[in-house]
């Protein structure tokens, strides 16, 4: 039994005053980097820092995906991605249950809209089997419409993939980061990396990371910089891949739309691209998207007239009634695509460096498996990790629409009436939850961060009712 480790620090401002070297620095606090930091935190022997350019964890690609916990049924068999998604699905499913990360096992239907797509379904089922997923079944049009009566006319059949689930994309990286920090990992935010140098130190050489907030020293480096993984790679003298951001725009519909759809409605992949999906969210909304646009600008996370209009057209075919509902929000994310159709995880032992690139939309699902894989690579390369311990469990806020929320919990309100004071009416977020988030291990740095932690201001009114009150609470916490 190990003594509980001292909690790590979460820093956002001021110079990084750390003369002592970390054993490992993980660059990038997205779902992948935070997952790696959490895995490393199980090894009490190593001193770890998680360094992030943004002011919050999960603030890049991780916050703007389709929020699906994939089975990996459609991965390319034999790839690293196929294996890590398959393993990650099981690992994250179990972890989510333990931590209270909202997951709903709604299942997916790949809907065939023409004869070619219908003909492709048995092949997709066979491919799923090659990926170790045996439960995919072809269903005919009658069975499809029985399951999804609001589906637009003209569907010919579908492949049912019962184990595809929806998950909260915000809580997942936050749970990792919270657990990592509590187990001793330092989290340095607002610390954009500028360049990296190598120096032979006393006895052992190491990296010096020159960040906006000053230098950090690290014996080992893990690059989980997502969209910027190629830039960091070049700082280390490696040019193994180039990230081409692929933008996905998504539209979130208001909660009454949730009654229109029961499964994740996936398109059948064709030569013309993956197409868009319609999926419920764990917050009780419905998602339509994503577009797939290859870009060069890694900051182009804006939605466009053309993108939204294309989604409108696609949505009208898949679920016509959806378009009669109000839109709650629109967002766009950039997937970190590279020239190859697989993850790009490489280790250079002599350089004490592991790069984790090309993690695209499946990164959320695979995150825990990626973390285990990367930790394995570090050990193989010579990092002495010692024996792993288990981390104290973390319990995340109950954000899922299908779980008991604090406003529904009489015991909780009796213990603290603030859980009975609803501040955000559309999402029914209470004062107690907002206080909890503001005082949490990794507190939010903005109202957007508060939204991702609580759902506050994330609903149909977008702050008409509660925006000013929330800002008052947030500013009060800062002063």
């Amino acid at each position, binding site marked *: 039994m190990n003594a509980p480790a001292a909690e790590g620090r979460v820093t956002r401002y001021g110079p990084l005053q750390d003369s002592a070297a970390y054993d490992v620095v993980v660059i990038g606090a997205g779902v992948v980097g935070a997952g790696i930091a959490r895995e490393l935190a199980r090894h009490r022997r190593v001193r770890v820092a998680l360094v992030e350019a943004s002011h919050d964890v999960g603030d890049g690609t991780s916050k703007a995906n389709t929020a699906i916990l994939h089975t990996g049924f459609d991965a390319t068999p034999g790839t690293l991605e196929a294996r890590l998604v398959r393993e990650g699905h099981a690992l994250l499913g179990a972890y989510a249950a333990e931590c209270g990360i909202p997951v709903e096992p709604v299942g997916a239907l790949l809907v065939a809209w023409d004869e070619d797509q219908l003909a492709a379904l048995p092949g997709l089922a066979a491919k799923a089997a090659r990926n170790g997923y045996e439960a995919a079944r072809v269903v005919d049009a009658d069975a499809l419409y029985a399951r999804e009566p609001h589906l637009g006319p003209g569907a010919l059949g579908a492949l049912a993939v019962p184990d595809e689930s929806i998950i909260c994309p915000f809580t997942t990286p936050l749970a990792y980061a919270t657990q990592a920090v509590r187990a001793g990992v330092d989290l340095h935010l607002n610390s954009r990396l500028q360049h990296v140098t190598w120096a032979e130190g006393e006895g052992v050489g190491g990296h010096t990371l020159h960040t906006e907030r000053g230098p950090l020293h690290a014996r080992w480096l893990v690059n989980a910089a997502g969209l910027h993984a190629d830039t960091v790679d070049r700082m280390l003298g490696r040019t193994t891949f180039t990230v081409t951001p692929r933008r996905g725009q998504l539209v979130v519909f208001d909660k009454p739309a949730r009654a229109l759809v029961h499964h994740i409605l996936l398109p059948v992949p064709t030569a013309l691209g993956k197409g868009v999906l319609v999926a419920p969210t764990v917050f009780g909304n419905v998602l339509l998207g994503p577009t797939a646009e290859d870009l060069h600008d890694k900051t182009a996370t804006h939605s466009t007239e053309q993108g939204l209009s294309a989604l409108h057209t696609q949505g009208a075919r898949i679920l016509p009634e959806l378009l009669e509902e109000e839109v709650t929000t629109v967002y766009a994310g950039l997937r970190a695509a590279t020239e190859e159709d697989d993850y790009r995880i490489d280790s250079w032992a002599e350089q004490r460096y592991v790069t984790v690139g090309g993690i695209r939309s499946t990164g959320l699902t695979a995150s825990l498996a990626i973390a285990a894989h990367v930790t394995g690579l570090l050990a193989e390369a010579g990092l002495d990790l010692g024996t792993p311990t288990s981390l104290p469990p973390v319990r995340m806020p109950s954000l899922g629409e299908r779980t008991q929320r604090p406003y529904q919990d*009489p015991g909780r309100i009796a213990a603290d009436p603030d859980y009975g*004071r*609803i501040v955000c009416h559309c999402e029914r977020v209470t004062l107690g939850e907002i206080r909890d988030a503001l005082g949490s291990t990794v507190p939010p740095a903005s109202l957007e961060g508060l939204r991702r932690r609580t759902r506050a201001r994330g609903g149909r009114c*977008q702050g*008409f009712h509660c925006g000013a009150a929330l800002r008052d609470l947030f500013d009060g916490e800062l002063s």
Partner: protein
Amino acid sequence: MVNGTGGTGEAGRALGRRVREVDVLIVGAGPAGLTAAEHLAAADCGTVEVLEREQQAGGVPRHCHHGGFGTPWTSGPRFAAARSRAATDAGAVVRTSTTVTGIPEARTVDVTGPDGLERITARALVLATGARERPRAARLVPGTRPAGILTTGELQQAVHLYGQYVGRRAVVVGTEPVAYAALDTLRRAGVTVVAQLTDLDRPQIPPLRAADARLRRTVPLLTRTTLTEVLGRGRLTGVRLRHADGRTTQVPCDTLVFTGDFVPEAELARGAGLRMDRATRGPLVDTAFRTDVPGVFAVGNVLHAAETAATAAAEGHTAAAAVRRLLAHEDRPHAFGPQLAVAPPLRWITPGRLPRDLPADDTQRFLVRAAEPLPARGGATLTVTQDGRTLHSERVRGPLRTGNSREISGSWVRDAALDGGPIHVTLAATRR
């Protein structure tokens, strides 16, 4: 206090809820709800309780620091306070920070508040949940998602209730009356309005008021202009606009206010399975403000997003009489007459149907809303027909605007056949 599992079939959900009964339960302490409460409590209707989810009663007028609430010199907060006091003085119980989270069965609501969970059953339930402005996303305005984008409602609360810093340079979208309230609030907060825009060809308020904003306050008004993109990361840095001639321009600003384009706050009504009016997006009611579920009424801006506080309050008064009638004849089944339907250029009419079991009330007014602005000159004629028979026609003078409704007479109601077909309300240019 009774702890237990009230209701039927919902025992699991009712667990831990305090189960209570009241005579009249009103959801929403805005002008409509408070006025209904005042008149019901004054008429000795037993226990009258108003549930308000905000910390203060009063509704939207709480943060409208301008005149025009009942009288030109009565401000929103004064109006809100007066209505609230009148309801309480008459004997109604007004509970704040108390949210109705669902309507598990007719006339029964689930409630969350600092005192815990309740399930309250009423003999009459009145929904007065109001309206909200449609925010940026609902309007599908493309671009980034920076801070600095708000609706008038949030702006007014930020400035008048919390004294928050707003920004320096604002662009205001819309020209409905509420847009001019937003201009006033921005001015008081020291924000320069660099542009006000509308995709219509003229502002949706009387010309004098528009001229005042444009000339005395020097707010540049851009008509036939569309907001095509929001720019900036972290904080808003500007907007891109497209003008009628296809030109695009970029306007630097750090604040963007979306005004008007109100929609009913009708999710509770919809969740309860009440029959909705597709045109208004609120519950369908008859002229006695009865929904299709016996004992459930709806009143105020949840029916017509959004009219003045005075209109909502007047409806609250009218609805109180209907609620009293229900309480006196509770076992009498209700019956509805024909529905009202409009055609373009009209967008909706409310109330949306006639009662069949009540005496014709020809003092009842209807509100019609235009789908597009209709010109001031030339005039138009509004015609009410049923089964090919003209029940009523009236000249509509002055322009019809998209942001507020026109009141039309209900004098024709007694001539309608209650077992006849739908009543059509049409508007056409007056023949010369």
